[in-house]
């Protein structure tokens, strides 16, 4: 089967600054991959490129063998680092919108998750706390039967209890053939769910390996190894 994500010589320049410098990466299906790196290393830029929100300066990028476009958007479920839902909407409205636009959206699954969190579907988003809105957004994203989930800082702005909920939601809601790529710099929280890690620094990949290999070869946790690699 074709890798879910492949990029070769991927570069992105913003106003004369190189955000990504010739990234070469292949991600196979059925893994949870951590895209790890300090702030400003190019993680969000890479995820935006995968979603077609940015266009590469040079190089190639394919999702399931296709250049980002309408067809890849049907199989990619994206959680941005910011809230993209309009405040005036009710949860009901958002559910209907996702059901209308995404053929793979599983509404009963979303309703079940919302019910467990005691979030009423009649509530408007602007009446919710930031953490609750982020949970609603994650529920929407994880309720799609997508082939690739791209989660940009999914635990960035929430409390530790909410982090556990989010990570549990991720691991219990993706199909075994699907791939999850999540970017974060809060490694200690996510490393228990990761299969692979990609260390990104200054727009380049400095390491791409499995979590088991780090533990076996380095004899340390991913978090400790990350601190060692990116020591200031």
């Amino acid at each position, binding site marked *: 089967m074709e890798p879910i994500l492949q990029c070769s010589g991927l570069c992105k320049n913003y106003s004369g600054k190189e955000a990504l410098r010739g990234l070469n990466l292949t991600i196979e299906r059925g893994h949870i991959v951590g895209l790890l790196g300090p702030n400003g290393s190019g993680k969000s830029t890479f995820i935006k490129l995968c979603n*077609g929100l940015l266009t590469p300066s040079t190089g190639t990028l394919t999702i399931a063998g296709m250049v980002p476009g309408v067809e890849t958007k049907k199989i990619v479920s994206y959680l941005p680092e910011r809230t993209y839902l309009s405040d005036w909407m009710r949860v009901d409205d958002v559910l209907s919108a996702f059901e209308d636009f995404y053929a793979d959206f599983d509404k009963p699954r979303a309703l079940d998750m919302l019910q467990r969190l005691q979030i009423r579907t009649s509530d408007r988003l602007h009446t919710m706390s930031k953490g609750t809105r982020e949970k609603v957004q994650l529920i929407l994203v994880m309720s799609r039967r997508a082939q690739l989930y791209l989660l940009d800082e999914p635990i960035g702005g929430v409390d530790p209890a909410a982090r556990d909920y989010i990570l549990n939601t991720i691991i219990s809601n993706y199909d075994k053939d699907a791939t999850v790529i999540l970017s974060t710099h809060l490694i200690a929280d996510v490393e228990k769910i990761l299969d692979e890690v990609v260390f990104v620094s200054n727009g380049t990949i400095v390491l791409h390996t499995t979590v088991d290999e780090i533990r076996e070869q380095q004899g340390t946790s991913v978090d400790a190894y990350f601190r060692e690699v990116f020591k200031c």
Partner: protein
Amino acid sequence: MLKKLIKYDLKATARSFAPIYVIVMALAILSAIFERVCNTFHSSSGLNVLNVLSGITLVLYFLALFVVNILTLVICMRFFYDNFFKDEGYLMHTLPVTPAKLIWSKVIMSALWGIATVAISLLSAFIVMTVGRGQFSYNWFNFHFGISHWEPMDVGVLLSGILTIVIGIIFIELCICASLCVGSLVPKHHVAVCIGMIIAFCIVHVVLAIFVVAFMQSAPNSNWLIQTLQAIDSRNDGYKQITICGLLAASVYMAAFSALYFVIAQSIMKNHLNLE
């Protein structure tokens, strides 16, 4: 998919338009009521409370009418910008739809609100002019618009006028959309660049209009276009035919530039999207 996009865009913008339409209609009705009361009690002359209230509501109505027309453009422009290039853009640009459909949904949505604003303006003006003065009748309408003896050419003028208005609204929306897309290409000051682009596009149209007028004035009588126009003008109802020709020419001109603006916007959103 386009229908779904339009449905959501209309729902999102209805929250902004509904209150201002309600205000315009309420002021029109209030103004008509005061006018009617003034006429009923024969207090149309002299300074009294009813006349003052009638005057105030009429002024407020005209102010609201002006504001609603300006706001239609501002709300649509802001919706374009927020929906495509701010946080909501993260959702819009990750929906499995082509950039062309995204653009058309916004243009059609704006055109519908533009038409609704024209309709609300006409309806409210009709209420103020007729209901308030107790002239709400077929005779009044016939007297002012002569609808009972309309000829096919009059219908032609009306239809070509409506067509020009619709294409004109689409032309303005696409011009704004193209300007916003060009503005999104620069790393900073998007809105300033966008407004600069709108002004630049307007200058292009003014220059072209000056060229057309200069050509019409300086062209020799032997020119085929001048001869054709003179031949049409010499017929019965010639001025109506000239009006239809003028409106259709304006429609074709605006349709051509709308296509150009669409290509610019689509190309930028497809190949140069930069949601930094």
